C-alpha cells in the first residue's frame, strides 16, 4: 500500500476514496509533482499518467490519482508486467576477449539506452514490494546487479552508475575481498554508504550449490556446506557494513531445494539465479531470474533482456 496522501488544499480535491482521489489540475502541475505529493515518489508519475490515459495535463481538468495500484499483481487482460534484473561481473576500459568482462563504452551505451528510453531503475527493495503486492512500481522497471566483487565494479561501473543516478546491488563473495583484482572493504563501505549501491551476499567461496559427485542434497555434509556458504558471509558483511543482509545471489546462479529452504528459514527476502527472463509479481522471491549481460552484447542484444511486459490474452 502507498503511504497516506498528505493534506492538500480542499478545493483541489473533488473526491476521495481509500484507493484513489480525484483532483482538479492546477496551473503548473506535472505528473511527477503529483506523484511526489500523493505517492511520495516522482518516479511513480507514469502510474498517474496511466490512470488518466496518458493525457497532457491542463488546468481545471479533473485527474485520477491512484493511491494503491489499480491491480498490484501487474496482471491485466492483455498480459502482465515483468521486471528484468540485469547481471554484470567485470568491467574494462577497452575490449576484452572474455565475455564476462563488460567494456566501459558498452556499459555507458547500455545505461544511456535505459535513460533515453524511459526505463526506471528500481532497487531490490522496490522489487520485493512488487512481489508482495505492497507497493506499485513504474511500468518499465529494471534492476541492475553486479556479481562477485571485482575492483572494476568500483573503478568503472560505480562512477557511471552515479552519473546516471542509477542505483544497483553488488553481490560480494567474501573470500574474494581484498585480493589483487577485487574490491577492498574500504571501497565496499564507500559504495554502501553512498546510498547508490546496495551490498548483498554472494556466498563465502563462490562454490556451486549443485551437489558434487557423490554428494547427496539430503546428506548432512551438503547441508553443512550450504550453511557455511550462507551464514559466515552474512555475518561478515553485516559486521563490516553495519547493514542488514537480506538478499542472496547463488554462485553460478545454481539454487538447490535445500539452499532455498535454508534461506527461507533465515528470513532472506530474495534469492537470485541466472535463469534468463523477467520476473512477474508471482515469481518465487527466492528463485528470481536474471539476465547476464555479456561483454560482446550489442544494443540489440541488450534490448532483448529488457522484457518489461509479457503479452498474452487473459480475457
Amino acid at each position, binding site marked *: 500500500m502507498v503511504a497516506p496522501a498528505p493534506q492538500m488544499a480542499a478545493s483541489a480535491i473533488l473526491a476521495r*476514496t481509500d484507493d484513489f482521489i480525484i483532483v482538479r489540475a492546477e496551473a503548473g502541475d506535472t505528473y511527477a509533482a503529483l506523484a511526489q505529493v500523493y505517492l511520495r515518489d516522482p518516479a511513480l508519475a507514469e502510474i498517474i499518467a496511466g490512470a488518466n490515459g496518458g493525457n497532457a495535463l491542463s488546468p481545471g481538468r479533473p485527474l485520477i490519482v491512484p493511491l494503491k495500484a489499480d*491491480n498490484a499483481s501487474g496482471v491485466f*487482460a492483455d498480459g502482465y508486467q515483468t521486471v528484468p534484473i540485469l547481471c554484470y561481473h567485470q568491467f574494462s576500459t577497452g575490449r576484452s576477449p572474455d565475455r564476462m568482462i563488460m567494456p566501459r563504452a558498452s556499459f555507458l551505451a547500455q545505461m544511456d539506452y535505459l535513460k533515453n528510453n524511459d526505463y526506471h531503475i528500481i532497487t531490490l527493495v522496490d522489487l520485493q514490494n512488487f512481489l508482495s503486492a505492497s507497493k506499485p512500481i513504474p511500468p518499465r522497471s529494471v534492476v541492475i546487479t553486479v556479481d562477485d566483487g571485482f575492483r572494476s565494479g568500483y573503478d568503472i561501473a560505480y562512477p557511471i552508475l552515479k552519473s546516471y543516478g542509477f542505483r544497483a546491488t553488488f553481490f560480494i563473495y567474501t573470500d574474494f575481498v581484498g585480493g589483487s583484482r577485487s574490491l577492498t572493504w574500504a571501497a565496499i563501505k564507500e559504495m554502501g554508504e553512498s546510498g547508490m549501491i546496495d551490498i548483498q551476499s554472494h556466498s563465502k567461496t563462490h562454490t556451486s550449490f*549443485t551437489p558434487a559427485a557423490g554428494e547427496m542434497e539430503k546428506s548432512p555434509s551438503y547441508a553443512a556446506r550450504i550453511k557455511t556458504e550462507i551464514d559466515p558471509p552474512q555475518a561478515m558483511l553485516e559486521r563490516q557494513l553495519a547493514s542488514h543482509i537480506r538478499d542472496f545471489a547463488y554462485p553460478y546462479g545454481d539454487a538447490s531445494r535445500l539452499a532455498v529452504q535454508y534461506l527461507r528459514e533465515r528470513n532472506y527476502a530474495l534469492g537470485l539465479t541466472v535463469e534468463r527472463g523477467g520476473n512477474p509479481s*508471482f515469481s518465487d522471491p527466492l528463485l528470481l531470474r536474471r539476465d547476464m549481460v555479456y561483454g560482446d552484447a550489442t544494443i540489440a542484444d541488450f534490448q532483448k533482456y529488457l522484457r518489461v511486459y509479457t503479452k498474452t490474452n487473459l480475457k
Partner: protein
Amino acid sequence: MKRARFGLLLLFPIGLLSACAGMPIVATVEPASVTPALVPPVPPAPPPPAAPAQFIADQRMEARRLDASGMPNQARQHWRYVLALLPRDDEATGEIARFDALIKTRRDAALARGEMAMMRSRAAEAQTAFLKALALDGGNEQARRRLIELENRAAFARQDRKDTRTRATRAAGTEEPEN
C-alpha cells in the same frame, strides 16, 4: 453529599447528550467575561466543488467501452470514479453491483479450471487459468499462491536439468559453466 451526587447524576446524561451532538459540554455555561464581540466569526464552509460534467461523461463512456472489450474490472473502476463524484448515481451503483457479480463468477470459474489443470499436471493450462483469475481479481491469494507454486516447480525443473549438465561437464573434466 447526597444532593451533590444527585446533581452529578443529572449532569451526566446532559453531558452525554451534548457530547453526542458534537458540542462541548462547557458551552452550556457561558463565561460572563467573554463578550460576543470578541468571538471571531466562523467562516462559512466552502461550497462543494461542482461535479465536472464532461469528466463524468467521459468516465461513463470509457466504462462502457471497456465492458464491450471484455475488461469488466477496468470498466468497474471507471464506474467507481463516477460514483465517487456522484454518490447517488443509480447507473454507477447498478453497474458496479453487476460487475462485482460478473467478476466473481468468472474468477471462480477460472480458479476451478486452474485447480482441475493442476490435478491433471497440465502446468501451462493451469497457469493461464490462474492468470485469468488474477487479471480479474488482482488481490486473489489462491491464484497468486498457485502461480508461485507453478513458477517454483518450473524453476527447479530447469535447475535439475542444469545440474545434470554441470555434473556431465565436471565428469568430462572441463570447466564450470559461466558465472
